[in-house]
């Protein structure tokens, strides 16, 4: 007996638990918590570099957020537990309600009590002359053929019931199962899927992907190699990129199996893995920089280095960490408020210059001098003292450093100025004249006026610079890397199946309404009294109208004379 009681207690407990788990308040609470938790992840940027978080929040909050997993929130155990809870709740809800719904859809009670009938809002009655109630019933069934009919006789009264859209409960079942299917698909994706990044330099191949797990990066070797044959960027005429295109070759066990182009929105598919064009960057371009000696007498030297490498110049004591190379720099050259005027400033190289106790500074040096309206305005350079690209400020150097003669003129001029140590207009002019004779002799080059202006500007600008040497981009051999994303997602098709079910179920649920009609036919004064009533489980506005159409069809079918009608 005691055992029995414990059993029943346990079953009461489990029933209660099931009831709780599948109850509406729990479902609504879960959805609310899920929604609120999701908001955190949108406000707090996910998967950024840890230093950035530390800088942004300070050590205390960084530690708090980090221990809650907020920097990779959607993969924390507590978020997954929430989703799991939702799945459990949904499953119990289905478990509890599906048998009842199926039963309801199968059984249709035909008999309706007077009381229940009188509560229905839409109803009418009228009198019909006919041989038998059966006869009237047949006529009604004939008139409303698209309805499902059932009938029952009780105490000499004929009850008819007609149904339409009684399958609408499948809508609930399908929608809830669909959400479950989607969640399962998502779980399969996370559990058995794979998603990582791979950077492949032009001309080389790679087989390792990297991905974030929590806050640290992990690596995985793919069963095949990807070689990037080329990467190119195409541009619209206004300088916006129009296309990123990589030409890839898949190498499987040393054999080239497939070569294809990929662009954004058109991935490559190989052995269940999709390869997407995700990003790009410099793949270690070779660059040559010309070092101009600003303080000494040395002629310009050429140094040969590569992006991502640091060149240490022993002569001047400066080092250059090359960080990026860009083949195009399209900028809007129009003044504020003027129509836009896009112009390509040409190739540039970014580097950080360090040494001689000076603060490290980020620089961008261009291959070509600046040209405005066809006029050479001399070389320019961008400098960011904070090291952030957004703080780049453009500095005009005055001189066109690509022209060796111009540099020679500048150098001759400035060394004379220093030697003379004289002030005054005349002395400067004499110095310039003598410098010019040294460089050009008697033959003045074309556009000499402009060059003179540039040299004089250079004399103003260059000595202001704190560095002993000035590196200027001289030549390059560009090489990109293409940033690929590789993904394998066995759960995807499950998700699509669930999605299709979801939309289908929603349409059934929202657009099919279950409408029921009752007819009660009983004898009255040698005639038959027909009572008709109808309800719909939703959309009463439309049903009111539909009921009136149905009524007139029913009345016509039973050849009812309107003058004898008794309105409710």
């Amino acid at each position, binding site marked *: 007996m005691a055992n029995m009681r414990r059993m029943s207690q346990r079953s009461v407990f489990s029933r209660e638990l099931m009831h709780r788990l599948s109850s*509406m308040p729990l*479902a*609504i609470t879960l*959805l609310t918590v*899920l*929604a609120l938790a*999701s*908001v955190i*992840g*949108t*406000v707090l*940027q*996910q998967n950024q570099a840890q230093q950035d978080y530390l800088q942004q929040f300070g050590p205390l909050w960084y530690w708090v957020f980090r221990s809650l997993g907020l920097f990779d929130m*959607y993969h924390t155990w507590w978020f997954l537990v929430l989703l799991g809870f939702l799945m459990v709740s949904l499953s119990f809800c289905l478990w509890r309600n599906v048998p009842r719904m199926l039963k309801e859809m199968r059984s249709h009670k035909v008999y309706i009590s007077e009381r229940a009938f009188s509560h229905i809002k839409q109803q009418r009655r009228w009198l019909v002359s006919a041989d038998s109630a059966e006869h009237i019933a047949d006529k009604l069934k004939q008139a409303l053929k698209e309805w499902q009919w059932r009938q029952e006789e009780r105490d000499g009264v004929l009850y008819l019931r007609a149904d339409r859209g009684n399958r609408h409960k499948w809508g*609930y079942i399908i929608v809830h199962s669909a959400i479950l299917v989607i969640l399962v698909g*998502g779980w399969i*994706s996370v559990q058995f899927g794979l*998603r990582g990044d791979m950077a492949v330099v032009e001309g080389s191949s790679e087989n390792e992907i990297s991905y974030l797990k929590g806050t640290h990066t992990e690596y995985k070797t793919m069963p095949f190699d990807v070689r990037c044959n080329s990467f190119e960027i195409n541009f*619209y*005429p*206004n300088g*916006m*990129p*129009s*296309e*990123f295109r990589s030409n890839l070759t898949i190498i499987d066990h040393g054999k080239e199996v497939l070569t294809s182009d990929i*662009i*954004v*929105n*058109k*991935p490559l598919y190989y052995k269940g893995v*999709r390869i*997407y064009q*995700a990003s790009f960057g410099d793949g270690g371009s070779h660059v040559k920089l010309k070092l101009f000696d600003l303080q000494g007498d040395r002629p310009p030297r050429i140094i040969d280095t590569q992006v991502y490498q640091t060149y240490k110049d022993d002569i001047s004591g400066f080092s250059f960490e090359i960080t990026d190379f860009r083949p195009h720099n399209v900028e809007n050259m129009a003044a504020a408020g003027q*129509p*836009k*005027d896009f112009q390509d400033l040409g190739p540039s190289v970014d580097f950080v210059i360090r040494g001689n106790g000076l603060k490290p500074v980020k620089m961008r040096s261009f291959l070509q001098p600046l040209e405005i309206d066809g006029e050479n305005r001399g070389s320019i350079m961008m400098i960011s003292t904070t090291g952030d690209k957004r703080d780049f400020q453009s500095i005009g150097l005055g001189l066109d450093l690509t022209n060796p003669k111009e540099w020679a003129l500048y150098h001759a001029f400035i060394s004379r100025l220093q030697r003379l140590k004289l002030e005054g207009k005349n002395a400067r002019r004499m110095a310039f004249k003598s410098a010019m004779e040294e460089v050009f002799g008697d033959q003045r080059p074309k556009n000499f006026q402009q060059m003179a202006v540039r040299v004089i500007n250079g004399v103003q600008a260059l000595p202001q610079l704190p560095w002993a040497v000035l590196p200027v981009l001289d030549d390059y051999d560009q090489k990109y890397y293409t940033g690929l*994303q*590789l*993904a394998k*997602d066995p759960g*995807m098709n499950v*998700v*699509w199946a669930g*999605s299709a079910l*979801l*939309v289908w179920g*929603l*349409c059934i*649920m*929202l*657009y099919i309404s279950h409408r029921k009609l009752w007819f009660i036919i009983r004898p009255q004064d040698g005639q038959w009294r027909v009572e008709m009533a109808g309800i719909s489980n*939703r*959309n*009463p*506005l439309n049903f009111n109208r539909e009921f009136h159409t149905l009524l007139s069809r029913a009345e016509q079918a039973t050849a009812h004379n309107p003058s004898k009608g008794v309105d409710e």
Partner: protein
Amino acid sequence: MSMTQSMAAASPWFQGKPAFVRFWAYIGLMLGATGLALWGGDGYSEDSYIFQLTSMQGVLWLGTGLLLGAALAAIASVAKAEWGESPLAERLVSWGDGAVLMIAMMALFTLFEPSASALSYEDQSNLFSIKLIMAMNVLFLFSAICYILMLFAPESFVARMATGTAWMGVYVGGSMLLLRWYESYLFMDGSIGHAPVSNLYEVFMLLFCITVIVYLQWEKRYQAQAMGAFVMALVAAGVFFEIWLGSIGQADIKPLVPALQSYWMKIHVPLNFVGYGSFAVACGAGMAYLTRQWLEQRNPAMKVLKVFPSLEQLDQLAYKSVAVGFPAFTLATILGAAWAAEAWGGYWSWDPKETWALIVWLVYGAYLHVRISHGWQGRTLAWWTVSGFLVTVFCFLGVNMYLSGLHSYGRLS
């Protein structure tokens, strides 16, 4: 979607056999266009498809489809009279008429476009669509004012003006969007042509049109004109925002970034806005509900109340709007996931836009849940539609303006 309801009601073209035949003629037309795309002589190219349609070959395909559809429908309706009585055809045929009218208006407007030498990508202020945008703004603002005045003067000229200008705004707006699509091909030798759903400014105008269309359907069917004051007030607020966007230089037609170069854009974005627009109408109905209830509590004999639909009706209309918007929004989100799977390497990345779309989905999903399965209605749900719309607005605008992520092309630049 006819311009005047009275015409639709009176004309035999919109009922019975003529409606049935015309409906199938439109279906045939669409099948013809599809056939051309699939099996046409020069193959399908998205950018030249419009020219294929207007070429001899296109006219043949479209004409054959149209005539076949009409002929088969005519035969069917003669062979069996009851087939000709199709409520679905009667309801949908005016949508076909509306679409044809919009396309015709757009074709007409192309004649007013400045000559090729006068056009410049840098300065787009002389495009004809700019004038149409202004006309649309004025029409919607005027309509909003009329709808509000109408509350105090129903049965008047103002009431007819309100509905009339709303319809005109829809047609001007719709044909303007089509024209803008055409205009995008006028720059840079057609290399930047794309559907006008690629930035915040363009989708705003799409949103107005969809919202007003959804609302006007309810007005046509359920005589809920007072609700228009609330829906059109929302639209008017949107119009001001759109004017502001234009004033800070967001109105230009710009090339598509590589991530947006996909046919998915044309499907995913408009479908999403069917969702947003319907939720806006639901919010309008909810506001009307709350206003009516508040007025009733203060003074049940107020004259204004006679104009309002009943509380039950407003409750129903809010639900109907959600019932239109929710499946569209669901499908749009799913198709967005399909696009993401194709472009970003995963169907769900917990990007802020995706996450907020999920939140919006949960809000309206919960609305339907408590309503359908638990029979809630009335005041609580009216508040629900209003606050749900606030969440929607954040998903639409707030995410673009305040949060960064993969959907950043919707951002103000």
